[in-house]
């Protein structure tokens, strides 16, 4: 049985090898994204962003006359699938670089493969700490929460004259717990006293006990690390209890779901994010118009970051003289990337070397300013 399967796989490999033999003027880039399953709501906009950007680049004659070809594979946000996809892209499709994977969890499993094979892996949606510690071939243009939240807190303090805050966070989820860890450090360094710290678990619906305790301390604002659904209920119940203080949140708040549930109660909630739909830069306007025209839906931050990532790599490829030797070309792309500067849909972008870790050479994080938003009348608008 196994022999038959291996035989079939061999056949498949051979078929693909024939089908994908490309003329020299094609530069293959891999995209590993979660296109099916519960994470597809992030993966699909990511794929769309890449597709749109590569079509635009090719329509303008490609990079130095070479066409970009995307090889898009579904990794289902599962670690084994992500590893399989990375290996297929690297060894079989022989791509120059890989974009992805969608979740940080998959990245921890798959990025070591790329790093070992000396292939650039470029994340557009991994925001946790430690991704770029995996090696010098790991890049990302997704801003870490650790970079966004300090700005969010500073701007909120400036806007509302906050003196002391209460903290509320979900302690059983990687994202919300990670957000809390960052908030804690930020509040310490900005010397803002914390009246009390309360926790909840994913799926909780009643937060009145925690909110009553918070109300008793009378803070100027509530710093909250939660996903949209819990966040909305927290805000709604806080308003019902007569708490009128503003909320300061993380990227988890950045969802239409927040307003579906909390409606106008969410007003004066302050968050930070990598991309603003209403940003008036010509680059962003062109992106939003092209995306909406092609896909019939408004883009989100994941699409915007993917779109920018392709332009970043395209910019780096301009400086690369293709030698025809795949290993050499991958290396030249890696060497050209750190110095790339572009004006993207998310704003001006450069790379920043990740802080050195003992014994391991690190990759590159995004050096980019976060946009700060405030909720007004059922949506987030840029705070001025």
């Amino acid at each position, binding site marked *: *049985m*196994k022999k038959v*399967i291996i035989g*079939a*796989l*061999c056949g*498949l*490999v*051979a078929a*693909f*090898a024939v089908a994908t033999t490309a003329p020299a003027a094609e530069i293959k880039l891999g995209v590993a994204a979660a*296109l*099916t399953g519960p994470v597809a709501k992030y993966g699909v906009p990511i794929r769309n962003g890449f597709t749109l950007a590569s079509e635009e680049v090719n329509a303008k004659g490609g990079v130095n006359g070479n066409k970009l070809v995307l090889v898009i*594979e*579904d990794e289902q946000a599962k*670690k*084994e*699938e992500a*590893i*399989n996809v990375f*290996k*297929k892209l*690297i*060894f*079989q499709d022989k791509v120059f670089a890989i974009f992805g994977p969608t979740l940080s*969890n998959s990245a*921890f*499993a798959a990025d*070591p493969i790329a790093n070992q094979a000396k292939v650039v892996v470029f994340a557009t949606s991994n925001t*946790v700490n*430690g991704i770029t510690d*995996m090696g010098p071939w790991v890049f990302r243009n997704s801003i870490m929460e650790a970079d966004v939240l300090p700005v969010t807190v500073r701007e909120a303090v400036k806007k509302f004259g906050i003196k002391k805050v209460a903290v509320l966070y979900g302690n*059983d*989820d*990687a994202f919300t*717990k*990670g957000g809390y860890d960052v908030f804690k450090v930020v509040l310490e360094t900005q010397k803002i006293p914390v009246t009390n710290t309360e926790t909840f678990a994913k799926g909780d619906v009643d937060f009145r006990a925690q909110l009553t305790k918070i109300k008793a301390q009378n803070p100027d604002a509530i710093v909250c690390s939660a996903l949209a659904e819990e966040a909305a209920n927290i805000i709604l119940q806080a308003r019902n209890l007569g708490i009128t203080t503003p909320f300061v949140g993380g990227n988890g708040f950045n969802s239409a779901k927040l307003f579906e549930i909390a409606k106008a109660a969410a007003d004066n909630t302050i968050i930070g994010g990598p991309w603003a739909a209403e940003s008036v830069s010509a680059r962003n306007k062109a992106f939003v118009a092209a995306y909406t025209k092609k896909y019939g839906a408004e883009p989100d931050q994941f699409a915007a970051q993917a779109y920018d990532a392709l332009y970043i790599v395209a910019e780096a490829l301009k400086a690369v003289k293709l030698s025809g030797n795949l290993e050499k070309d991958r290396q030249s792309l890696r060497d050209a990337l750190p110095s790339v500067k572009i004006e993207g849909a998310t704003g001006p972008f450069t790379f920043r070397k990740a802080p050195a870790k003992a014994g391991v050479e690190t990759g590159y994080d995004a050096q980019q300013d976060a946009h700060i938003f405030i909720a007004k009348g059922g949506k987030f608008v840029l705070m001025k």
Partner: protein
Amino acid sequence: MTDDLQVFWATYNTLVYTVGVHAMLALSIYLTLSCGLLSLGNAAFMGIGAYTAALATLRLGLPFGEALALGGLLPGLVALVIGIPTLRLSGVYLAMATLGFGEVVRVVFLNLEITGGSMGLNGIPMKTQLWHIVAILVVLVYGFVRLRRSKIGRAFEAIKEDETAAKAMGINTTSYKLLAFVLGAIIAGVAGGLNAHFTFFVSPREYGFDPAVDILTGAIFGGTGSFVGPMVGSAILAILPELLRFLKAFRLAVNGLILILVVIYLPNGIWDRKLFARLRRKGSA
């Protein structure tokens, strides 16, 4: 040709490893099934093994062999402790109890400092090699072949067919059931340890409800009439998504369709000896 082979191996070695690990998990659930126990705790035991082995390498710096041994030992001990009370249950009640145990294990991983909480453990070195998996599988298969005709194997079969009758024949059903449960946990734990050392990363969500059901699905898909069935079934379920990759968006739909067709037309699984015998007769007639 050697080039093609090299590319094939570089691309698919993780898949081959995964097939091997799934085969071990299939054997681990087959062991309890062969004793009439519907236990869904195998994913949790795999998780305990994976975390134990990973921590042994990361924190204690133990050699891979010892880490793997610990990864088998701890789930075995846990199985012993929780097996004594829970194995008094049978049928769906046992399934529910073991499922509940799985959830408890997941929540423990989520809340302990040493397991990295919801972030899991990353940076686990690549230690697993093909021969490790092959060697362990060969030993397991040899063990299962010998088990069939042994006193223990026959006791398992007797308990599966009719527990009361087995008891009446003087078989100590409790200790045999416990034996199957503990051995199953050890195998699952070793499989978890191997898996952790070729995927660089473990996190709580890999050992929750879904993988528990996946392991059972593989066993049922292959057929639980003999130990070969679950191995074949789980191997096919591991390979199928990669084999169907060319279907792009329709991949999972076709995957599901194949599962449904097999369950409808081959209710005893793919590896059905009676079916093979019937086909052979038809062929010769």
